[in-house]
């Protein structure tokens, strides 16, 4: 039954792990990988959902796999321009009186906060939920965009 309750108690821990991983990556960028190969932080799957984050020049994208959810089950907030919060609930769809053979899918409420790499314009956030995949497209604030410096030729 541990799968059933795995989400909520570890949100904090997961957040910590996220910070640690980010710190590790930042250190790797600064100093390069050293002779001692630091192993990746253990993959913690205790929280939900896992999130992929990527960016291009104009946007930051976040994606999460949320099978069985509808947009109405989700609350998406961008706070302080650099924090994305996902809140939601997944209900178990099985009838009440059944005999269980396997229970691998998790259910319940979840909440995660993701630190964004740059500040975004909270007014320009688009979210799409398709076949259980949530994609959030956030426009970078003008100050965060890479600026092309025109080079004058005399």
């Amino acid at each position, binding site marked *: 039954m541990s799968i059933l309750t795995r989400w909520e108690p570890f949100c904090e821990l997961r957040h910590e792990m*996220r910070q640690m*991983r*980010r710190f590790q990556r930042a250190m790797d960028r600064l100093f390069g990988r050293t002779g001692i190969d630091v192993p990746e932080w253990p993959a913690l799957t205790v929280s939900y959902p*896992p*999130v*992929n*984050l*990527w*960016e*291009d020049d104009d946007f*930051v*994208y976040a*994606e999460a*796999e*949320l*099978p*069985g*959810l*509808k947009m109405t089950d989700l609350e998406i907030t961008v706070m302080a321009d650099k924090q994305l919060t996902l809140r939601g609930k997944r209900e*178990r*769809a*099985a*009838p009440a*009186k*059944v*005999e*269980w*053979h*396997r*229970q*691998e*899918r998790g259910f319940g409420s979840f909440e995660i906060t*993701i630190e964004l*790499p740059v500040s975004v314009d909270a007014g320009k956030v688009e979210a799409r*939920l398709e*076949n*259980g*995949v949530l994609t959030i497209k956030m426009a970078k604030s003008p100050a965060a965009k890479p600026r092309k410096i025109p080079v004058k030729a005399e």
Partner: protein
Amino acid sequence: MPETNAIATKAAGEATAPEATRGGIYYTPLVDIYESAEEVALQCDMPGVKPQDVDVRFEKGELSLQGKVQPRQALAEYVEQEYGVGDFYRSFAISPEIDAARISAEYRDGVLTVHLPKQERAKPKRIAVKTG
């Protein structure tokens, strides 16, 4: 329902043979399986699979579930990557008590549900007890 690891071998060129795979990684989707008096039902998370790319097969007592995922994020420069994107595959050995002809499946919001109705003879029956 014990899980089978091996993909069922099929004769080459057979019309029902699954299409050649892309040779990428298959992810094992998470499933719930439960049983009621009428049926065994299976729910399987296959996020990112388009409804037409879900493939459910039943052959020689084995139920196989496959979901092809259109590649996405292929060129993405990740700031954070916590999961991989790829196809799903999993198979299960099915009890002969299941009526194979009536197996049905539906896919909605990234979740595949398969209904495996029991044969009449496998359903529990309540015997009326007469008195006096």
